[in-house]
């Protein structure tokens, strides 16, 4: 018997079983019963959870069950459970096959990564720069005007935004000339006149640039809110202390403002890295065309065409599964780094 169960009894001068341990044992034995009693007592609270759990179970977790289809031979008209297993054959065919499908998949995988990576490289710093600039504007009214204007594009839906981009960059056609922005770019010599006339969105060389610039245009102002909030939260005494130490305005920026927002920047950066592979497919789908697949096709859109517009549903979901699992590893990795980074503060 374990020593912890025994206690020394002073009166009888001997060891005996600990009565408290017996209670603990009883609790352990009747744990489920007690839990059940707690649930019954608090049934209203548990009832409140039910709709949420149902929604997530039915429309977030049940689709994961359909994912079993990746490991099976697709048979039209059969349920997933009834199909025959084929192990990793679908994955093999997709990743190491010799068909054009394999090439298209790796192209899509690369594009997914590149679109996100360029977004990180160019899109990520923009809101921070904007917030630093907002901080320079001392007139409240003028700053609000700038802020309201830069938040504006965020309020369009993806459909309206892409429609606008399509129209502004459109090719010259039967009845009308090139879109106004495309022709302005051609006049400025940034793109050639022929490219503008043929439609910038029809040219795979421009897709990534258009995607990033429209992304910055749409989101930079809105995303700057987080950083600007961090800047205005800096206590005025920090500035005063820096001033007494002889810091000029630029030195204050260097030694007060930037260190103060750094933790926000790091958190946002880690989040961004975590979502490297989960790119919004809606925008890509609304902007790409068959002749820009080379640079525009991402894994989700590839899977969409393969699975929903004909082809193989099993291979399509296998493609997305590879992408999503890699993405999940990135998210969890980035999260654990974030946890460590927030413990070990950078300043």
């Amino acid at each position, binding site marked *: 018997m374990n020593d912890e169960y025994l206690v020394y009894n002073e009166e009888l001068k001997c060891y005996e079983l600990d009565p408290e341990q017996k209670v603990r044992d009883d609790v352990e034995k009747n744990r489920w019963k007690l839990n059940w009693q707690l649930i019954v007592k608090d049934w209203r609270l548990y009832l409140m*959870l039910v709709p949420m759990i149902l929604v997530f179970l039915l429309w977030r977790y049940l689709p994961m069950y359909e994912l079993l289809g990746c490991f099976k031979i697709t048979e039209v008209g059969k349920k997933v459970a009834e199909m025959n297993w084929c192990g990793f054959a679908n994955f093999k065919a997709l990743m190491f096959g010799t068909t054009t499908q394999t090439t298209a998949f790796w192209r899509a995988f690369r594009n997914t990564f590149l679109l996100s990576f360029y977004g990180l490289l160019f899109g990520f710093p923009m809101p921070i720069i904007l917030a630093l600039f907002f901080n320079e504007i001392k007139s409240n009214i003028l700053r609000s005007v700038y802020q309201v204007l830069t938040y504006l594009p965020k309020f*369009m*839906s993806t459909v309206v935004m892409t429609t606008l981009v*399509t*129209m502004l960059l459109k090719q010259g056609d039967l009845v009308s000339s090139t879109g*106004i922005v495309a022709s302005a770019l051609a006049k400025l010599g940034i793109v050639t006149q022929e490219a503008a006339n043929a439609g910038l969105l029809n040219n795979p060389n421009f897709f990534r640039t258009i995607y990033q610039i429209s992304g910055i*245009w749409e989101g930079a102002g809105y995303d700057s809110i987080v950083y600007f909030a961090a800047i205005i939260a800096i206590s005025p005494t920090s500035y005063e202390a820096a001033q007494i130490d002889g810091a000029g305005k630029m030195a204050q920026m260097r030694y007060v403002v930037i260190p103060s927002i750094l933790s926000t920047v790091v958190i946002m950066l880690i989040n961004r890295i975590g979502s490297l592979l989960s790119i919004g497919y809606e925008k890509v789908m609304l902007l790409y065309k068959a002749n820009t697949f080379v640079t525009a096709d991402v894994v*989700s859109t590839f*899977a969409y065409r393969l699975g*929903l517009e004909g082809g193989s549903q099993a291979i399509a979901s296998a493609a997305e599964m590879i992408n999503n699992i890699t993405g999940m590893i990135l998210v969890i990795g980035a999260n654990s780094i974030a946890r460590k980074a927030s413990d070990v503060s950078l300043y």
Partner: protein
Amino acid sequence: MKRKLEVSELIFKIISYTFLTIFSLACLYPFVYAVSSSISGAHAVDYNEVILFPKDIQFDAFKSIFGNNQFWNAYTNTLFLTVYGTIWAIGVSILGGYALSKKRLLFRSGFNFFLVFTMWFSAGIVPQYLNYLKTQKVFAAVGITDVKWLIVIAMGMAAMNIILLRNAFEGVSSEIEEAAIVDGATEFQVLTKVYIPMSQSTIATVALFFGISRWNGYFWARQMIAASGSPNEQPLQVFIRLLLEDYTNLETLASWTAPYSPNSAIYALIVVAIIPILVIYPFIQKYFAKGVNMGGVKE
């Protein structure tokens, strides 16, 4: 304390003002251009004579949109999806977030993981599509044949929003809750009389996130409407997209007879889709800023 500007500071100020001016104008310009183009004459729009201000003003493009029954139908559908979708999503999220905020909830970390996992991993488009098709069949079997109810109930729930609500509820002091319980309040009364009034701004923010995602919903609505073959259920975003696809189609352009340019028609649609949001923009802006801020700091 008055002091002279340093040169570097002056340069930075000039850069700030210049950059912000250019960037804000770049944000504003497409809207101005869309409005101008939507009310300009066909020739002016087609040959880029409209740069900033409208030319040869016409309102036929708007008239034709407003006279189009399909447009009103799409608008009504979007309003339906936005209103009911937001109510449903916020209701489910408030109840769930409230329960999750309670430390006495058994298996609390398990439920939390259940939510957070959906943020990390999603099954993907094809399995989701198959799942929606099945649900649609189940819905039809119990007599709900409209796709819009499926869209309202099944789509647009977001784990992040529930977590925002949970965090807000956790921030409410427990003394007030205890006082209410002493006064004989039931669980539901505690929620409606204490927690909801005390977390109004978070609830407003989250409702706004839901509302906007509903208003903007496009992809799944289009897929499900195509699958069920009920085009009169299409929301505004799908309507706009289909018209864009139609108006940039060479055959449509070749047989175009309206007195205005097809481009004006598209720009007019864009304007009409943006206006309602611009109207409520001043009222919702402060919540937006608050919500993002909160989301950023809490993480």
